[in-house]
């Protein structure tokens, strides 16, 4: 296993692992061409349906230069995922640009992967499972519509009935007490 601290050379002739990392992340839901699509929270990127999302460095057009393959150790670019307990849901729902409540789910990451203390950033990703929070009785119908509109991704989309958005992560922690991430490095060391 080639695992180094801050190694910039992500691409190697032979891969280190054959199973993707599975971590958690949060998406916005936006409409594009009359279709509901998942979008990143902090950059203007929508996730394609039935095709992997390829990471790009969005500093490329800024003062930092960029223009390098993503992710890179010296940058913050890449497709992010984290462990369930790391998600600061209350901060995310207070994000001022969110018109609709965000959705949460697991994501598969592969390609060039940088593992950090509390998560990963990678060159390629695709949703593995999506949970749509349904807030009380009135939110249920809206959440059902949203869940149905995301089925084109071809992955399970489930409703998560909660009383408030602050209950989303605790509800998932009850359901997935071990977090249900898949971490190839950790699991290969454990084996």
């Amino acid at each position: 296993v080639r695992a180094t601290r801050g190694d910039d050379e992500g691409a190697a002739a032979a891969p280190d692992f054959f199973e993707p990392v599975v971590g958690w992340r949060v998406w916005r839901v936006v409409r594009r061409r009359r279709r509901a699509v998942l979008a990143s929270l902090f950059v203007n990127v929508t996730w394609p349906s039935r095709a992997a999302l390829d990471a790009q460095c969005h500093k490329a057009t800024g003062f930092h230069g960029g223009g390098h393959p993503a992710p890179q150790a010296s940058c913050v670019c890449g497709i992010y995922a984290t462990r369930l307990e790391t998600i600061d849901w209350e901060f995310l729902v207070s994000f001022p640009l969110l018109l609709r409540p965000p959705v949460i789910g697991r994501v598969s990451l592969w390609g060039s992967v940088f593992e950090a203390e509390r998560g990963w950033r990678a060159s390629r990703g695709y949703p593995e499972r999506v949970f749509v929070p349904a807030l009380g009785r009135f939110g249920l119908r809206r959440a059902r519509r949203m869940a149905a509109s995301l089925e084109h991704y071809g992955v399970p989309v489930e409703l998560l009935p909660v009383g408030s958005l602050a209950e989303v992560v605790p509800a998932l922690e009850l359901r997935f007490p071990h977090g249900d991430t898949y971490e190839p490095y950790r699991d290969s060391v454990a084996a």
Partner: protein
Amino acid sequence: MKIGRTIRSYTIEPLENPVPEPPSEDAEQEASDLPFRQLTVSPELTTTVEPRRRGV
């Protein structure tokens, strides 16, 4: 999302594609045909019903 300091890097090439295959054309065709499917009835199962005369 703050994930902290990078501690290692590696490459992953999944043996199975994590991206679901698009629905097959056959399945799509079948689904689109469903409301218009032609029902065929075997001739042996058909019978002729004479209209009943009323008021005779």
